[in-house]
């Protein structure tokens, strides 16, 4: 059975057990975040949860490490712009 998640509205399929990061890379996407100072693109770097470069928003929760979080069917994954949590800004 093919499982899939939504990444910025696009369907991305994955094998059970894969992380979100692995799924995105397998689909040809290699960046899913912009830095907060210079707006530079980032994706996966250390791959093991130490560098926190690969942060993205999953089901509304920001700052999730794509290299660690296991992909699940129906997840809503979004590029994280800057710090995430833009809704809190006053």
């Amino acid at each position: 059975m093919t499982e899939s998640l939504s990444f910025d509205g696009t369907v991305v399929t994955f094998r059970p057990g894969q992380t979100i990061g692995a799924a995105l890379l397998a689909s040809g996407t290699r960046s899913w975040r912009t830095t907060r100072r210079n707006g530079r693109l980032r994706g996966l770097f250390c791959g093991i949860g130490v560098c926190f470069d690969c942060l993205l928003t999953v089901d509304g929760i920001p700052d999730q490490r794509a290299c660690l979080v296991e992909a699940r069917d129906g997840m809503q994954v979004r590029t994280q712009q800057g710090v995430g949590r833009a809704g809190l800004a006053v």
Partner: protein
Amino acid sequence: MPGSPSDPYDVAVVGAGPAGLAAATTAADHGCATVLLDGAGGPGGQYWRSAPGTAGPGTDPTTDRAGPGRVLAGLLADLDRVDVRTRHEVWSIQAEPAGFVVRAQVDVAEIASRARTLVLAPGAHDRQLPFPGWDLPGVVAAGGLQALAKEHGVLPGRRVVVAGTGPFLLPVAGAVIARGGTVVAVAEAGDGTGWLRDPAVLMGTPGRVRDAVAYAAVLARHGVPFLRRTGVVEAVGDDCGVTAAVLARLDGAGRPDGGSRHTVDCDVVATGWGFTPRLDLPLGLGCATRADLDGSLVVAVTARQETSVPGCFAAGEATGVGGAELAVVEGRLAGLAAAIRLGNAPSDPPPARLLRRRRSLRRFAALMHAAHPVPPGWPAWLDERTTMCRCEEVSVADVDEAVTDLGVTDPRTVKLLTRCGMGWCQGRICGEPLARLVAARTSTPYDPMSMATRPVAVPLTLGALATGPS
């Protein structure tokens, strides 16, 4: 309830890689009530990753060696007597009169687990050295590439340059080839002669030599250039990511020869300069440290793997980077020492074969460090705009301004002034390079302790911290 103040475990092992698995199973073998905690979803740590349903855990598909797989399988089979807690990210450990309390974040909650003795096996992660363009998408840690390949069967691109130093570059290249990718080149900064300094060591560790020969054969079969005294001095790309790597010859100190620069097309650059131990938890407990041969700060341990904190033992990469087999040996010794301390095992000398194996593997590790040093001249390939701190986007120019213009000569103050090392990763990636760069710029000794302490070992939410257990 095991782990509660009234019912502590005998042994808590933190880290379920080779060292932690060996320590936990050994302790359990001696009748100790043992808990094993790890932040990942399953045991194995960084060394022993495998995709579900493949030939066997830890089997290396490029050489089909089942060695590591057998050891891992054996340890996993013994785990049924251990309380295994996965997805437990330990953020702090305190010493108490009766032992230790291990605090871990699980999803958004926090738990506390108490034990009479403690074995720390937190492992290590790739050491990185910044270079121009290393923050482009597509530049990844060598260990990250291997984790993707082995555990998820995924490559982050099709044309890969592997660069840095150390025997680990070879299996990384092998993993790319095994999954149908192209390794454009392997760039090794060392010259390979360091291994010849102590040939007796190589004879004592024939498995390593076989590994190296096997990997070399794989590379040769696929026409992959293995370039010694060469490094990636720049990653080039557009805003979407890496499109090419600039290679250059390096002199004995690691300084690039500008005239030798040549560019190769690629969409992945995988870099690694050996490994650097994860010391947040041992430092948080006040364990004494020492500088290992590769300049890394490591936990100082006795012959029985005990740290300077009584009842706290350490094993694996944290005591000195030396590979999975050494980690297993140290783990067994640490688990045994914990059992002896608890009175669950007679305090005889440890088995001689374990001590011999540890000695031999440590000699191998020493040789490896000597053959693959962090080249002192690496700052020569930096330019002003090179990112030093990925998290906070601090450049080399920012660091130089603090040192030169503002007269700051110690890494901690440079950090506090520039924010280099103050972002999400809290200096795990950039702390060592920053300390090395400041030392180079100020002609002062490199001080690895200056950037090392992190009382909060993994981020946890204010809500979890507020409501966590005592």
